């Protein structure tokens, strides 16, 4: 066995099929620790299935999926408990004293949730709820964070503001982050590496490493070109 201490997720020759329908054949990729990877592709190409395989909700028909570490997911729909306040939701399943730690206060500040600590989810906008969900994860001891199209339900402006807040919060915390999205701008802005998937059959048609630690550091022109090259690959 390879030394897997610096690998978070590894797909080896993974086949996945449902009855007659074959989704992937011989899917291979590796995600290293503390990487921020985006998985981009058209809908129906299996992004959610990849997520399910990583999270352990699905098992591959053939091949192996190796995961090192705890996984938490932020989904498109909020899973906050409506009868608990923001603070209580964040501290769910954890020792209540965590609410007094530096980490908690730091994140609360970075995600701009401070004024809303005692609000209830139904009083918050969609974007804020996503932030609370993220913070719930970040306050715990999670190694791997999966984001499944977390901003799809938000409007344009919100998407951008909240995206920035997310990135600011996650920057200091050294976790492996896997972002699943169909928004290419988002992928380019936020992540360090983009896996582009195509469908029928689902394969990785490109694996682009962006030479930056986090968003915003690439030049505008580069980003523009990159984006259109990805789009053209997806649409051929």
């Amino acid at each position, binding site marked *: 066995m390879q030394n897997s201490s610096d690998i978070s997720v590894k797909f080896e020759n993974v086949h996945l099929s449902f009855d007659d329908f074959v989704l992937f054949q011989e899917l291979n990729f590796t995600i290293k620790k503390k990487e921020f990877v985006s998985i981009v592709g058209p809908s129906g190409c299996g992004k959610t299935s990849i997520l399910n395989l990583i999270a352990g909700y699905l098992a591959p028909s053939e091949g192996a999926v190796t995961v090192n570490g705890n996984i*938490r997911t932020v*989904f498109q*729909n*909020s*899973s*906050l*408990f*409506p*009868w*608990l306040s923001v603070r209580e939701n964040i501290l*769910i*399943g*954890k020792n209540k004293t965590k609410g007094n730690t530096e980490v908690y206060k730091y994140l609360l500040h970075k995600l701009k949730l401070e004024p809303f600590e005692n609000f*209830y*989810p*139904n009083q*918050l906008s969609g974007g804020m*709820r996503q932030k609370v969900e993220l913070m719930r994860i970040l306050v715990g001891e999670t190694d791997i964070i999966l984001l499944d199209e977390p901003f799809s339900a938000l409007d344009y402006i919100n998407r951008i503001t909240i995206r920035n807040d997310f990135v600011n919060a996650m920057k200091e915390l050294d976790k492996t982050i896997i972002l699943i999205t169909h928004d290419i701008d988002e992928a380019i802005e936020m992540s360090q590496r983009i896996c582009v998937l195509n469908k029928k059959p689902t394969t990785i048609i490109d694996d682009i490493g962006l030479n930056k630690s986090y968003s915003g550091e690439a030049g505008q022109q580069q980003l523009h070109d990159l984006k259109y090259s990805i789009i053209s690959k997806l649409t051929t």
Partner: protein
Amino acid sequence: MKVILFFKLLFYRSALFGILISVWWIISYMKVFPEYAFPSPNNIWLSFVKLVNSFRFYSDIMYSLYRILFGFLVTIFTAIPLGVLIGLYLRSSKSLITVFNFFRFISPLAWIPFAILWFQIGDKPAIFIIIMASFFPLIISVIAAVRNIPESFFRVAKEYQFSKRDMFMKLILPAINRELITSLRICFGISWVVIIAAEMVGSQDGLGYAIWDARNGLKLDVAVCYIITIGVLGILLDNIFQYCLTKTRGNVYAK
């Protein structure tokens, strides 16, 4: 500001009340119906005063309250846990639900002859009828509410390693809280209506019995006094449920 609102409400309610009484007074004054069939407000008031000064009145209230609370509490402590279990674990509970539904549609009053045969006369048949009236609607409601809890909540519970006890106390009960209280409120209404009828046949005291007794003694004015009491008590008790509903936290499902 709030004070003005309060008085405004008070005024409207009194006005409505006053109109009703006036209409009633007019009808009885004009002798549209004979006195013994349609008592006048005057007679009712006199009977009421006499009633309020009797022990019997309060003891009747206590008996009815005792029976309905007993039956209701039994229902709460059986239907809720059972309903949660069925809602969570029984995939094929459709047939069970059909059975519950079947019983739900049998008027609780139809059980009266059996109640008397099995439990004789007194508290027990009335309590039995209350349980028959409230158990089935409640358990069906609990099962539906539990089934409606979004999967994502259970996922979160699993991720954060909720124990079985936590699942029940911290996830399920809070999640179904509003629906539960609303459903309880309805069941209580049914029980209140039913106990009056149950007492008419199966007991020797209580509000229902008192009405029936008054009617058999051809004292309809006393019967009306009790009817008014029943209505007022019903509202007061209903307010308990409404109050608890306002104290629920957050809206159940965020949009």
